[in-house]
């Protein structure tokens, strides 16, 4: 591993101080950070270990559900409230990586992990995301890259829990040197046109201190489906998170968010519009078609358009048949 200074802050003020000069990065589960420290991929000079901060752990029930950013994927996927009231999140957390990694990887880390693009992850390519001048995916091998929102970089955001949490209406509590603020998770991410180097809007001195889910409604149905090449371990080639507020069989409102297809979790309100006021079972094809409208695939990833359309179709069919309720 590349050498670094290790600091162990005792409170949130210490954390903000340790991060303020922009040279520090938070150690939570370590499953992404340690890999980058070993491979020397954009490694920080200082590692800020937040694991001794008790307030960052655990799932507490209030009007909704409040999840600490150090809650592991295993804990999220196994929590009864999450499984029964926010199934899309439980399914997303369970789809992450492997049992070992789910025991280590945290919710905050899943939202803040860096891209998996093979050019970003290789030191042989001084790509745009590492301060270089070229996105090698444009003319290179781009099977796994963005079909929406790409340019000038074509990374995809790798998080599984982010699409699910956005579909479920999650907010983040964020702490920095000047105090705390709330931010809808939908507004947390930023694409390469806004900022090439940072995939989210955390300021240098900030960290996520809570992930807040709104109260679950009896009338909400949610699910998460992920396509990958292997049945375990893999990151999403495409994923869909759907949360719909139903009036019987009719869709009142909802959110549909795609993962693995854009530099940010990709919300598709046009697909929801196709569903609103209609019987879910009769509107599935229209919604799936609307979700991929405007896709701009690269040379090798046109298959993701068909894949994403069919994945959304399958997710909506499952919700129409009430399968999510059976969980």
């Amino acid at each position, binding site marked *: 591993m590349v050498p670094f200074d*290790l600091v162990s802050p005792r409170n949130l003020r210490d954390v903000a101080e340790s991060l303020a000069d922009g040279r520090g990065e938070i150690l939570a589960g370590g499953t992404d950070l340690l890999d980058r420290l070993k491979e020397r991929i954009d490694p920080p000079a200082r590692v800020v270990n937040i694991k001794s901060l008790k307030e960052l752990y655990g799932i507490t029930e209030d009007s909704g559900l409040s999840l600490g950013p150090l809650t592991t994927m295993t804990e999220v996927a196994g929590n009864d409230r999450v499984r029964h009231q926010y199934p899309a999140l439980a399914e997303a957390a369970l789809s992450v990586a*492997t049992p070992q990694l789910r025991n280590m990887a945290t919710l905050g880390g899943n939202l803040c992990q860096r891209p998996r693009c093979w050019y970003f992850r290789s030191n042989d390519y001084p790509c745009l995301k590492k301060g270089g001048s070229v996105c090698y995916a444009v003319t290179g091998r781009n099977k796994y890259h963005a079909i929406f929102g790409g340019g000038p970089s074509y990374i995809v955001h790798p998080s599984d829990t982010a699409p699910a949490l956005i579909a479920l209406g999650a907010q983040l509590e964020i702490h920095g040197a000047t105090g705390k603020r709330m931010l809808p998770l939908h507004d947390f991410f930023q694409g390469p046109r806004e900022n090439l180097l940072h995939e989210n809007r955390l300021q240098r001195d900030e960290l996520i201190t809570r992930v807040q889910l709104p109260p679950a409604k009896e009338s909400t149905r949610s699910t998460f489906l992920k396509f990958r090449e292997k049945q375990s*371990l893999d990151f999403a080639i495409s994923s869909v998170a759907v949360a719909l507020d139903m009036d019987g069989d009719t869709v009142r409102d909802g959110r549909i968010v795609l993962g693995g297809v854009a530099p940010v979790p990709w919300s598709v309100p046009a697909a929801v519009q196709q569903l609103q006021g209609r019987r879910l079972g009769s509107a599935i094809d229209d919604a799936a078609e609307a979700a991929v409208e405007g896709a701009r695939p690269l040379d090798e990833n046109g298959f993701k358009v068909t894949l994403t359309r069919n994945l959304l179709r399958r997710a909506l069919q499952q919700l129409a048949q009430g399968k999510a309720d059976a969980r």
Partner: protein
Amino acid sequence: MSKIHISCTINGEPQEFLCEARQSLLEVLREDLGFTGTKEGCNDGNCGACSITLDGVLVDSCLVLAVEAEGKQIVTVEGVAGPDGLHPLQQKFLEHAGLQCGICTPGFLVASKALLEANPNPTEHEVRHWLAGNLCRCTGYDKIVRAVLDAAGQEN
């Protein structure tokens, strides 16, 4: 680089060691403490050859900093067998020939033991799901899965 003093328990025995911040727990276990049963495969969390339990939780030791072992209970493959001989899982891996080159085997044993402690009667699907974090490039997994299922039957 100044060294950091760490106290922990490994396979029931108290241990102390000095390490650098940038050393992984896998590195210290193997290179400094002689627990070479824990294997280094990919060194990035894909293969599970370095599986250990940390306070009873199954993790990849290549992605844990050695300093994070402070105060923790660690169990490596060397802690799987009891004083009376092989653990039932080890016996069944032998009987079913659930290994060939053997590099992945310590990780599979540690992961399987964690599985049976959490779920003493797993279905085949559950075994395969749980062992998804351990890669084997020889056996094709089938003999490993049968060994674990057989050991589960044995223990009950």
